[in-house]
């Protein structure tokens, strides 16, 4: 017994190193799977406050560019609104529609955005106090951004589409050929769409949108256009490079989408969890 204690005291540096290193490596390995460790997350009070106060200063520098993006979005929405023939008359019906709508939309702001790593995350304003919960979709005015993964009272962490662990259901806009959208970690504006069957009519410049097969994103949210593709003759699937509409390096105003019938759908899918 005494020998063991003497041994421990003698090698305390090495032992402490091994213990701490095991913890660090454990956290690292966990972070390389989709269900990341919630222990190490920027969605907490201290880092949230520091990053959001820095963001409060930063936002002044690109007000002009961000205003332009918002105005462009308004232009698009106005065009759609004015081209609906009886927009004025249908207002009462519309209000009723909002009460019962399938998707709830909340606006939010990006506090910190990383895009230079292999597995990127964003920190956004709003948390469980604003009735934001995990697994909600996040989009910007131009396309998809990511999925909420961790929530604190005031902040939420979003797993970006620029993360090698994300895979999002996507389809060709024209047809209903589905594929999986992933990122290979190289360029922040190119994603790859895999598992599209060879029967799909793939052409350069075609639009890719979300597929609507998941409960996270609604159908037909724009993602990007096909910039390059090749057919793997052996497997019979396309590898498609998708150029994003979204500039992931310049994100500010974003929207959180909540499918209000998600719980109901999930209950049907997993009857045991009821």
């Amino acid at each position, binding site marked *: 017994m005494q020998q063991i204690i003497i041994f421990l005291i003698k090698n*305390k*540096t090495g032992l*402490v*190193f091994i213990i*701490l*290193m095991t*913890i*660090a*490596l*454990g*956290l*690292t*390995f*966990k*972070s*390389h799977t989709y269900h*990341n*460790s919630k222990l*190490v*997350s*920027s969605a*907490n009070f*201290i*880092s949230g406050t*520091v*990053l959001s106060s*820095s963001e409060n200063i930063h936002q002044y520098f690109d007000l002009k560019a961000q205003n332009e993006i918002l105005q462009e979005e308004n232009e698009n929405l106005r065009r759609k609104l004015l081209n609906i023939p009886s927009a004025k008359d249908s207002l009462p019906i519309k209000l009723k529609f909002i009460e019962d709508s399938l998707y709830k939309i909340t606006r939010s702001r990006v506090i910190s955005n*990383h895009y*230079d*790593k*292999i*597995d990127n*995350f964003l*920190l956004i304003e709003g948390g469980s106090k604003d009735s934001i919960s995990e697994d909600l979709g996040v989009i910007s005015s131009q396309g998809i951004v990511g999925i909420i993964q961790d929530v604190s009272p005031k902040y939420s*962490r979003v797993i970006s589409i620029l993360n*090698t662990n994300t895979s999002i259901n996507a389809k060709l806009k024209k047809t209903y050929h589905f594929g999986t959208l992933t990122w*290979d*970690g*190289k360029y*922040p504006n190119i994603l790859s769409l895999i598992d599209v069957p060879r029967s799909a009519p793939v052409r350069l410049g075609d639009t890719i949108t979300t597929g609507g097969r998941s409960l996270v994103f609604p159908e037909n949210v724009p993602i990007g256009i096909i910039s390059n593709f090749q057919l793997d003759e052996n497997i019979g699937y396309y590898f498609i490079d998708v150029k994003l509409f979204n500039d992931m390096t310049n994100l500010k105003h974003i929207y959180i989408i909540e499918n209000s019938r998600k719980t109901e759908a999930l209950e049907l899918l997993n009857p045991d969890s009821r």
Partner: protein
Amino acid sequence: MKTYFINSIRFVLLILIQVLILDEFNVFGYINPIIYQLLIILLPFNINSVQKLFLAFVLGISMDIFEDSGGIHAAATLTIAYLRPLFLRNAFGLSYDYQTLKFYDAPFRERFSYVSLMVLVHHTVLFSLEIFSVDHLLFFVKKTIYSSIFSILLIMITLNLIRKNSK
């Protein structure tokens, strides 16, 4: 007591500089200068080794929390903290063994090799854990080498700036 005080201030300052200023740099899209390991580089040479390891772990984990990176900064910082005596002996030779070493009295070449060793090992561990895939080997090598050059440069400049203030 004084060392604790100085090092806690350095701890907070370095993390804030790293998170608020240097993380905004993205030279050529993927090069990030990293200088928070300056805290480990500048620790007193006779510090208790267990304390040093815990300090390194807390420093790394704080960076991980800000960057949402799991435990990669903690692992990298722990590695250089553990290997520091080895690098010190390698760079400064006998004056470290006899405990007569004063960091700023050492010739530039020795200081430079010590800092370079620390930064290179730190970045190698950090980026290999971050990228974590053999498919991106070339990307890893490029990122490590270029980021190391920037970090070493920044750290050497910072070291000279600190010295002028304290004299």
